[in-house]
C-alpha cells in the first residue's frame, strides 16, 4: 500500500471512481465503484507505478443477517462485497480493492448481482470468479466461461450466501 500519494494519483486518473478508503484498517483498502472496476484494474496493472501484475484472490462476502433479532443490531445494511487482493511482483507491494454490490440485482430476490469480470486483466480471475459465482452467487459479466467450479453443475443455490438453505436431498442422497 503506497499511502496518500498513491490514492491521489488513482483519484486523478479516475475522478469519482473511489467511493471510500479504509486506511486505518490492518489491511488498508480502497473501495471502487463497480462500474469503474475494470478500468481501474487495467490501470493498476499497466500504468500505475507499482504495476500490480498479479491478482492473488477474489473473495465474495455476503453481508446479510438471516436472524431478525440479530439483524436489528447490526450497523451495516445488507450487501455483497467483493475483495480483490492484488500484488506486484515488481515492487512487492499489495493492494486491496473492494467493491460493494447489492445482494440481488435491482433488489429482486433470485437475480444475481452483476459486476464486470476482470478475467481479461488477470487470468487468475478466471477460476477465482467462477468460484465466487459458484459459492457466493455473483454474476461476472464478460467472463469467458462462467460455470460452477467446485459444486456439481446441477447444484442449486450458492452455499456461502447467509440465507442459503441446505437441500434435503441430492439425487437420492439424503443430506439431513
Amino acid at each position, binding site marked *: 500500500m503506497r499511502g496518500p500519494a498513491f490514492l491521489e494519483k488513482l483519484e486523478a486518473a479516475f475522478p469519482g471512481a473511489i467511493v471510500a478508503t479504509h486506511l486505518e484498517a490492518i*489491511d488498508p483498502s480502497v473501495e471502487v465503484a463497480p462500474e469503474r472496476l475494470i478500468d481501474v484494474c487495467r490501470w493498476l496493472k499497466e500504468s500505475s507505478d507499482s504495476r500490480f501484475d498479479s491478482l*492473488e*484472490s477474489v473473495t465474495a462476502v455476503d453481508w446479510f443477517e438471516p436472524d431478525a433479532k440479530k439483524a436489528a443490531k447490526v450497523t451495516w445494511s445488507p450487501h455483497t462485497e467483493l475483495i480483490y487482493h492484488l500484488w506486484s511482483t515488481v515492487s512487492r507491494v499489495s493492494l486491496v480493492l473492494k467493491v460493494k454490490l447489492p445482494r440481488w440485482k435491482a433488489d429482486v430476490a433470485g437475480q444475481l448481482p452483476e459486476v464486470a469480470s476482470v478475467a481479461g486483466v488477470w487470468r487468475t480471475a478466471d477460476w477465482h470468479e467462477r468460484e465466487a459465482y459458484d459459492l457466493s452467487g455473483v454474476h461476472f459479466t464478460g467472463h469467458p466461461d462462467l460455470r460452477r467450479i*467446485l459444486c456439481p453443475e446441477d447444484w442449486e443455490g450458492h452455499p456461502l450466501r447467509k440465507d442459503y438453505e441446505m437441500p434435503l436431498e441430492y439425487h437420492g442422497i439424503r443430506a439431513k
Partner: protein
Amino acid sequence: MAQLVDDDPRIIEFDVRTDEMLINMGPQHPSTHGVLRLVLRTDGEIVSQVEPHIGYLHRCAEKIGENLSARQWIPYTDRMDYLAAMNMNLGWSLAVEKLMRHEVSERARHLRVLIVELGRISSHLVGMGAYGLDLGTFSPFLYAFREREKILDLFEEACGARLTYSYITVGGATADLPPGWLAKCEAFLDQFEPVIQEYHALLTTNAIFIKRTAGVGVLSREMAIDYGCSGPVLRGSGVDQDLRRDGESIYTAMYDGYAFEVAVQKNGHYPRDHSYPAVPPDAVLGDCWHRFFVRMVEVVQSMDLVRQAIDRYSACKEPLGEPLKLMEKLPVGDVYLETECPKGQMGFYLVGDGSPIPWRVRARSSSFSNLSVLHELCRGCLIADVPAIVGSLDVVMGEIDR
C-alpha cells in the same frame, strides 16, 4: 473451445479431422494426484485441449469455518494440503494472530520455523517421489517415503499425529517439544543429508528423466504471474519471489535472523549450485525439470533452516506460552495473509465481527491457481507428457477443492 483450423499442418498430413478424440483421464487415474479429472481433446497423440474438472473433494471448508471459532477451524486447515499440514496450520494461525494483533513468544517462533521447514521437506519428498511414479519409475517413491517416514515419526512424537497434526495453533503451538526430540531431529538431518545425492542419481541426472522433463511444459515468466502461480512453479520460471523474504512483516519476522537464499535460477545459476548436479543442456527455464529442481534445492535449503532453528530454539530459555483460548473473541475487521507453503502461496482471508466465530473465512489455495495454467502448458504436447506436466505442478486436490 480451441478448434483445429484447416491450415494446421497436422491435419493435412494425417487428415485426422474425424479422428479427434475426447479422452477422459481421472478422477481415479493414478497419476492425476488424487481426484482430478482431465478431459483431453486429442488429435492422434497430440493434445489440442485440456480441461480440468475439479471439485470432487469439495468439503465446504469455508462454510464450516463460518460456524466454528478460529481455533476450532485448525483441523480443517490440516485437511487442505494434507501433505504439509503443519504449513497450513501456520498460515491460518498467523492470519488470526494478525487480526488479533497477537505476537507469539520467541520460543514459539523458532519452534514454528523448525516444524514448518521439516514439513516442507516431507512435502517435497512426496512431490519428488510421486513425480517419479508419474514418469514410470517406482524406486524413487520408495526412497522418498523411507525418509519421509522419519519426519513423520518426529512429528508423531511432537504432537501425536502423523498426517493431520493441528500442532501449530493460534498463539503458538499446542505443546512444547518433548525432551530428547532435538537430538533425534539432528540425527535425522545428519543421516538425510547424504541421501539427497541418491535422489539426484535416481532422478535429477537420470537420462530418461531428463528426456521426459527437460523442455516439456515450458511456463513463461509472464504467464506464471498472469495466472497467479506461486511457489516452486513460479520460481521454476525464474521469478525471484519467496514470501519468507518478500511477504508481510508478520510472516517475515518469523524468519528474522535466518540466513537462506531463494531457490531460483539467477544468471544461469541456482544458489550454491556447486553442490548440485549441473542443469542439463536440454532444460529450458520454466520447464518441468526446473520446477522439479527448485524443489530439490528447497529441500537442502529447508534442512539448513531446520539446523539454524534448532540452535536458536535450544538457546531460547523462556517458556513457549499458552495458545489462545478456544473461544477467544475476534476483533471487528478483516485481514488477508499469505504464507509460503511447499506448494506455493497459501492465503487466508478472515472477517471478524466481534464474536469468536468468524463472519467469513476464505482460503486462497496455491494449487488452485497453479492448476489453472495447465491448459496452457498442455496445448500441443503429447498425451504421455500430460502426467509429466501435472506432476511437475505438484498439486494437492485437498487444497484445490477445500
